[in-house]
């Protein structure tokens, strides 16, 4: 029926032209949300392509890849099969994909590397030679640049390969080389350490990134790789064989006769012909990508899209707000239209059509921005040397364009549903009444109050239950309950915010009320349209709650990890030499490392304490202990004649703090005073003087060291490893501090990513604040003019709007922070209680930053509307419309 449809469309377009400015601001919110979705989808596609490229890189430029299609996974290609295939007519070369892992060492440094056979044919090698030659005979290798750097070696040098050899049952093959002889039954075969001297003949590069994950690969002769693999006790067989043909394949299909010939050759050596899969390189790479990523790219997408959903939810709130005000402003026009015969359905459709047009335009812009951003990121990425070969251009898949577009339109239209209903409620009579300040008086339904209260209370109940389950060491069920409870209660809080947030705003308003007439005006203005203010604050509240929750949770995780590491490890770095004879060398090596505050040797022996025999005790110099320990005040309790015991140890030995216990060693007996310590790692520690009495032969077996303040744990740990690696027999280095630092770093990176993703929602919310303020300014033109006429200065007018902005933002941020800390704590208790006592940490710095950003954002959001308001001439107050 064009008769009814056409005027609606024309009306809609006319209305949109008049409200263009306001719609643009709302459109930006949607555009950001859809750009987010687009970037996520494009990035997902890029990750997928990169993974496929890396897998395909392994196949070099082979024509065909032979793999195994065996449901039981037992079939493999052996050397006979490979040879048979290579002997076929038309096959130029074959290369079985093999890998052997071993430790390359040189001058005290080591590098764990993957070894692959040197290529049989140039088209079958992902590696390229940049220097020297390929290994030609046994005992030669070509190494990647990472090994050149790590070990400081080059072409012509010799390095040592450390590998394990499992002697076969005959026990003849390798007998005698290893220091450890084989004892016990045959199935308890102990590996024997084997070293080989290898000559470096060349340096390789990995231009297509086939070995990105392993830092390059070492090429050795195929014979060496096979021999080392066999000596390790593994079968020399392959899952994949690369084939280069004399005549390159044309087309994407493998000809049937070629397939049959290859399968037949393999079958002739005993393989089942139907287990031989022959594919082109591309087909195999695509199939293997799916196999390897196993849907993980999907998990990544869902993870990121969750944040996009949050951003779109916030954008939806902004849209709803905007349309509510637009409808309110158009009350007169709408009523007039009703007077001249427009039906409610037409008005409803007109608003929804407006939303759909806005959604479509904004989403298109969003998709374009998202695509451009991703492409720019791709262009910039290579300069950061990520070590991953990225494609140079994005590919705009249909999904990446259509999905964000549909989502953007859907969100906008959905958000406009309730304002559209409001438009239909405008009575024709309203056209005849002079409407002064149009405000939509929505009745906050009783149903809403009941449902949101139920959701909030029930959700928090579930959250509490989750925490209780976590404390009861059932974090799996607890997390389920906690996540569900958190989500339900948050939905309740957000949907119910229009009911209670105005009261919070009023309370906060009373605080700022006293600071002058501008503030009083601002507070009164904020409260005159409580629903709109609440919706604007809620938009910010969502982002702030999630950011705060994440940083509170992260702070809790960091704290718990620190506590756990402190309670399990006495000191920052522990070094145990490979043999007792080298302890002094290790000690001096450690002492020379920069970045360590102190180090001391630990001796040990087994003694009888009270009536319990064979207890290990450690001994240190009492003066040196406090310097290397994380808990120096506990260390100070150690004096000659005392033994440190934990509460638990003291109880089981039936002694109390200050009591006496008899220690009996191979060389003597002492009565030691018990000092109970809270530091677990200091359990059963005595002084070296006392240990010498108990066991004259006791020698130091480890070195404890503590980091200097400000030293980088990871760097120092690596330095200690290098320094002690140079000592004969090496040493085992444990770095709790580095572990803690690494863990902290991982937590920080994850937190950074998550907060970055959530920041999008916060940005949209800030746009919402600006939008709300601008709309208020437009609505209140006459009022602003009156105020100016009765003596409000431009400065006061700007201040008034600044206070309004910060009040709206402050309420959102304040409530958001409270909720976020609560959720963060609940999450920590539920998830982390397994790691020990959870400490409820408040990340004050983070919170201060969040509050600061929110308030500044509110302030900034008021700048543009305030400029518009200040331009209002007082004459406008006199105008009669």
């Amino acid at each position, binding site marked *: 029926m064009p008769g009814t449809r056409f005027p609606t469309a024309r009306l809609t377009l006319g209305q949109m032209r008049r409200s263009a400015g306001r719609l643009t601001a709302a459109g930006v919110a949607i555009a950001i949300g859809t750009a987010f979705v687009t970037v996520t989808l494009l990035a997902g596609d890029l990750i997928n392509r990169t993974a496929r490229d890396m897998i395909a890189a392994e196949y070099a430029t082979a024509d065909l890849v032979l793999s195994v299609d065996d449901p039981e996974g037992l079939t493999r290609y052996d050397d006979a099969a490979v040879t048979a295939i290579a002997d076929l007519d038309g096959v130029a070369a074959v290369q079985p994909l093999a890998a052997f892992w071993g430790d390359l060492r040189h001058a005290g440094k080591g590098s764990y590397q993957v070894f692959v056979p040197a290529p049989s044919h140039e088209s079958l090698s992902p590696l390229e030679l940049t220097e020297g030659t390929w290994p030609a005979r046994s005992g030669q290798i070509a190494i990647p640049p990472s090994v050149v750097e790590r070990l400081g070696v080059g072409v012509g040098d010799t390095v040592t390969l450390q590998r394990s050899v499992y002697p076969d049952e005959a026990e003849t093959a390798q007998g005698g080389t290893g220091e450890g002889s084989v004892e016990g039954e045959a199935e308890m075969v102990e590996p024997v350490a084997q070293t080989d001297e290898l000559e470096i003949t060349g340096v390789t590069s990995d231009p297509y990134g086939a070995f990105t994950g392993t830092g390059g690969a070492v090429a050795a002769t195929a014979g060496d790789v096979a021999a080392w693999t066999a000596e390790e006790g593994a079968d020399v067989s392959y899952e994949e064989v690369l084939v280069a043909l004399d005549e390159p394949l044309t087309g994407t299909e493998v000809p049937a006769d070629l397939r049959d010939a290859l399968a037949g050759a393999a079958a002739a050596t005993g393989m089942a012909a139907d287990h031989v899969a022959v594919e082109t390189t591309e087909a195999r790479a695509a199939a293997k990508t799916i196999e390897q990523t196993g849907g993980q790219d999907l998990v990544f997408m869902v993870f990121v899209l969750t944040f996009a959903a949050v951003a779109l939810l916030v954008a939806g709130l902004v849209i709803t707000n905007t349309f509510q005000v637009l409808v309110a402003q158009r009350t007169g026009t709408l009523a007039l239209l009703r007077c001249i015969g427009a039906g409610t359905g037409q008005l409803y459709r007109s608003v929804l059509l407006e939303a759909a047009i806005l959604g479509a335009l904004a989403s298109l812009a969003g998709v374009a921005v998202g695509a451009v951003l991703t492409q720019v990121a791709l262009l910039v990425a290579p300069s950061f040397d990520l070590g991953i070969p990225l494609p140079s251009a994005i590919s705009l898949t249909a999904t990446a364009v259509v999905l964000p577009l549909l989502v953007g339109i859907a969100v906008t239209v959905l958000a406009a549903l309730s304002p559209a209903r409001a438009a239909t409620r405008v009575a024709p009579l309203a056209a005849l009444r002079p409407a002064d300040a149009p405000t939509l008086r929505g009745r906050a339904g009783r149903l809403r109050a009941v449902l949101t209260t139920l959701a909030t209370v029930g959700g928090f109940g579930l959250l509490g239950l989750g925490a209780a389950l976590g404390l009861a060491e059932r974090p799996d069920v607890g997390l389920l309950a906690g996540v569900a409870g958190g989500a339900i209660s948050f939905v309740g809080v957000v949907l119910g915010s229009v009911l209670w947030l105005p009261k919070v705003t009023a309370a906060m308003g009373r605080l700022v009320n006293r600071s*002058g*007439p501008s503030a009083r005006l601002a507070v*009164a203005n904020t409260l005159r349209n409580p629903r709109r203010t609440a919706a604007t604050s809620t938009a910010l509240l969502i982002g702030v709650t999630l950011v705060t929750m994440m940083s509170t949770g992260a702070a809790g995780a960091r704290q718990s990890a620190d506590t756990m590491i402190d309670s399990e490890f006495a000191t920052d770095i522990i070094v145990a030499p490979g043999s007792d004879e080298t302890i002094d060398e290790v000690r001096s090596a450690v002492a020379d490392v920069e970045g360590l505050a102190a180090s001391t040797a630990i001796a040990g022996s087994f003694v009888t304490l009270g009536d319990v025999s064979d207890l290990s005790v450690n001994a240190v110099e009492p003066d040196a202990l406090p310097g290397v320990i994380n808990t120096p005040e506990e260390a100070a309790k150690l004096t000659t004649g005392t033994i440190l015991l934990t509460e638990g140890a003291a109880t089981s030995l039936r002694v109390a703090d200050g009591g006496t216990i008899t220690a009996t060693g191979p060389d003597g007996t002492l009565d030691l005073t018990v000092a109970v310590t809270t530091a677990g790692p200091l359990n059963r520690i005595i002084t070296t003087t006392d240990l010498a009495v108990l066991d004259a032969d006791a020698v130091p077996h480890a070195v404890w060291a503590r980091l200097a303040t400000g030293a980088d744990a990871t760097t120092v740990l690596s330095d200690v490893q290098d320094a002690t690696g140079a000592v004969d027999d090496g040493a085992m280095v444990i770095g709790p501090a580095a572990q803690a630092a690494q863990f902290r770093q991982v937590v920080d990176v994850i937190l950074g990513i998550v907060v970055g993703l959530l920041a999008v929602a916060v940005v949209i919310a800030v746009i919402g604040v600006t939008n709300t303020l601008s709309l208020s300014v437009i609505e209140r033109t006459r009022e602003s003019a009156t105020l*100016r006429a*009765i*003596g409000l*200065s431009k400065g006061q007018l700007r201040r008034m709007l600044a206070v309004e902005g910060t009040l709206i933002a402050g309420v959102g941020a304040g409530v958001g922070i409270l909720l976020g800390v609560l959720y963060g704590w609940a999450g920590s208790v539920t998830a982390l209680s397994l790691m020990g006592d959870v400490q409820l940490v408040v990340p004050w710095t983070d919170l201060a930053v969040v509050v600061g950003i929110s308030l500044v954002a509110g302030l900034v959001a008021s700048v543009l509307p305030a400029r518009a308001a200040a331009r209002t001439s007082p004459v406008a107050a006199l105008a009669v419309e």
Partner: protein
Amino acid sequence: MDTTVYVPLDGMGAGSPAVRARSLTKTYGKGEAEVHALAGVDVDFAEGRFTAIMGPSGSGKSTLMHLLAGLDSATSGQAFLGTTDITRLGDRDLTALRRDRVGFVFQQFNLLPMFTAEQNITLPVELAGGTVDQAWFATLVETLGLRDRLSHRPGELSGGQQQRVAIARALIAQPDVVFADEPTGNLDSRSGAEVLSFLRRSVRELGRTIIMVTHDPAAAAYADRVVLIADGKIAGDITDPTPEAALAGLDALRTLEPSVAVGGDA
């Protein structure tokens, strides 16, 4: 209706003008499209008097008031409030002027909906950062009959009551002059008469100076003097007008040539 002529008491003004216009001109547009809203107006408004500016639509009466009140800028000429030439003031000084020396009463009342009557009345003093003179406030409330309405919000007041609140707001800072722009334009005749009586009482009993713009001869009759304006020029002057005299003056403007003095020598 009370039409008795009010003769000002000695010493209550009439001598020194509160507001003066000298060759005040305002033009809109340029060249062919140039429109003279005000074409060189010279007029004095006496202190302690209630003066009405009357003229038909488009005569320039509103423009004259905007310029005299410093709400709009003149193209040329001068407007004095006391001895201050307000055409030379910047926005900051004009804001201060509006705070301390000028009050406004609007046709649409323009009360702030979220504040009570009392809060609306005291707002100008608060904006200026001053303290409300409680005795003056009580006098205003008493004179305007707002005692029972102070805690009501504008939405709970009748039009007449709202306009009385607006008058109190205009007078709270004891300004040199109050400008009223069609103050009865949005009121029924009863409320209108009531508001006009209050304006007149403010002048008589409280010694204020009020300049009112109106196109209604009945309203103008409440004033001590009517200044007639047509086509951007002063077209007549009636002292101690009656509604009939005012109506006759207005009719004369519509039918006769401009600048003909009616009902007394200007």
